[in-house]
């Protein structure tokens, strides 16, 4: 049996965070009673004239620049014709042969270092309406249609078939999401459908160059669904080939419940879209100055920031990658570093207890009560030896819950570390007397017994004794 290699390309739809729809002034607000966020344009009534929302073009250029694409000087909109009631016009306005941007890339991390994944094109289009079925889709003879989402602006980002595993596909998707979030053009919520993904996947024997026949998987609305469906599909395709079968080029859908992809065989010629330039919309001639202005307004993007953290703050690449994953986290880190001289300590706290508590409470970093100044003073207290690292965790949890500053908590709760030799020595002596067993063990050469004794002293002082001092005194006494 030959070894197989997987070839994956992703088509990602990103909903743009504009106020109004792409070709009319209806709201893009999520939710709303059915068919209330509509007007004659997005309902496709006769005689209406769509006009493109300038913000949509600006956002598309913004995303394209962040993804290292070349912006087309000349671009236009086309009609993609198909008969399906999710669009009232029987066509979707999209961009076919002259998209707004082409030839970009983004970088993902692999075992063999950074890998560039090509981006073929990026174009603008309108979202479709939503079909609702009463009962199961198979049982109901009707579809109910809500056009609130029809005409909400999207960009579609099409990757090159450069991805070689479901893991790489997930990484690409996560990186794309991180970059888009940095640009601020979308909230990228997969659960609300503002980030969606279709995957093209094929397999081929290792060492060959041509592509196998691909299947397109639709309806991937989570990172988990993306990875699981690709894993399933690889196995299905290899099994089919090994059994002497052929892969059919087709669209498949991911069934989360069954954990498998299913064929969506349609009777008609699904891909005969008969694109034609939309005569209602005039072409776009993108001004270089406009592109430069947008470029100048982009924030520092994750890759650049990550490299700077390594150089400027001496952080390991691992830390730098995690801290720069979202703009909010990176901004917070930098605010802390401005008031705290030890970037690695800040990084450890943010990646450790901080992230743990945020996840536990389902909070975003922007909702957190600990100010950078407060975190810095907590680290100061540890550095000066006022509190032990262990006590600091308690103080931190307190700060997280109440937003009080570290000094106040330490003072009010009497958590100041006991570094006074006289105060500790009495407790050390008492512990030695009450634990003759471990004392004998230690004297017999069992080092581990010391840890037990240290623990006893710490317990007796409610964790406040300076651990180094305790260690030192115990050794002296023993």
């Amino acid at each position, binding site marked *: 049996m030959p070894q197989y290699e997987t070839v994956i390309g992703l088509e990602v739809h990103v909903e743009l965070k504009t106020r109004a729809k792409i070709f009319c002034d209806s709201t893009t607000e999520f939710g709303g*009673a059915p068919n209330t966020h509509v*007007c004659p344009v997005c309902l496709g*009534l006769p005689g209406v004239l769509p006009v493109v929302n300038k913000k949509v073009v600006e956002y598309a250029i913004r995303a394209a620049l962040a993804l290292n694409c070349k912006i087309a000087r000349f671009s236009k909109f086309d009609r993609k014709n198909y008969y399906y009631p999710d669009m009232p016009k029987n066509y979707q306005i999209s961009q076919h042969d002259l998209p707004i941007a082409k030839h970009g890339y983004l970088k993902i991390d692999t075992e063999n270092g950074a890998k560039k994944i090509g981006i073929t094109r990026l174009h603008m289009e309108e979202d479709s309406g939503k079909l609702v079925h009463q009962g199961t889709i198979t049982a109901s003879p009707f579809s109910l249609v809500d056009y609130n989402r029809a005409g909400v602006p999207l960009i579609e980002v099409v990757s090159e078939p450069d991805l070689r595993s479901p893991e790489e596909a997930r990484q690409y998707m996560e990186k794309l999401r991180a970059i888009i979030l940095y640009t601020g053009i979308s909230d990228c919520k997969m659960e609300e459908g503002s980030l969606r993904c279709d995957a093209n996947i094929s397999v081929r024997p290792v060492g060959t160059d041509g592509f196998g026949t691909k299947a397109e998987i639709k309806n991937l609305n989570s990172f988990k669904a993306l990875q699981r469906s690709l894993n399933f599909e690889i196995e299905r395709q290899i099994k089919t080939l090994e059994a002497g079968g052929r892969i059919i080029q087709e669209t498949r859908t991911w069934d989360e419940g069954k954990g498998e992809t299913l064929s969506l065989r349609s009777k*008609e010629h699904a891909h005969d879209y008969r694109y034609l330039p939309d005569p209602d919309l005039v072409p776009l001639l993108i001004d270089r100055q406009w592109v430069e202005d947008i470029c100048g307004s982009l924030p520092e993007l994750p890759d650049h920031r990550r490299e700077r953290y390594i150089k400027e703050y001496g952080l390991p690449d691992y830390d730098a990658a995690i801290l720069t994953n979202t703009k909010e986290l990176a901004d917070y880190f930098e605010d802390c570093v401005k008031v705290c001289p030890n970037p690695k300590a800040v990084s450890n706290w943010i990646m450790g207890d901080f992230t743990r508590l945020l996840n536990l409470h389902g909070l975003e970093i922007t909702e957190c009560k600990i100010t950078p100044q407060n975190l810095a003073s907590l680290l100061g207290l540890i550095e000066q030896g006022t509190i032990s690292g262990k006590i600091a965790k308690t103080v931190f949890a307190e700060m997280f819950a109440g937003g009080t500053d570290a000094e106040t908590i330490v003072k009010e709760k009497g958590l100041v570390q006991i570094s006074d030799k006289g105060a500790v020595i009495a407790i050390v002596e008492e512990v030695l007397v009450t634990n003759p067993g471990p004392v004998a063990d230690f004297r017999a050469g069992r080092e581990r017994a010391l840890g037990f004794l240290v623990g006893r002293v710490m317990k007796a002082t409610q964790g406040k004794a300076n651990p180094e001092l305790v260690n030192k005194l115990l050794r002296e006494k023993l």
Partner: protein
Amino acid sequence: MITKKDIEHVALLSRLELTGPEKDMYTRQLNDILNHFQFLARLDTENVQPTAHVLPLQNVFREDWVGRHISREDALANCPDREENYFKVPKIV
């Protein structure tokens, strides 16, 4: 050259039901039209930019402002069938 099969294909895509004589008629008529374009194709267009739009206009934009929506009753006024506040259509899968 357009065949009757092409006509059937396009009719299917456009959801048109055509009779036998209609298919013959459209096959002939569409071929006539394409023949006319063959005639136009004889022109030398070496230095002519492909036309993306018939008007000499670019960059007609609207600002990102939300305007008035039409009422739900107006939105649903023309639909042949409705259920509550939805358009009701035959299921297509």
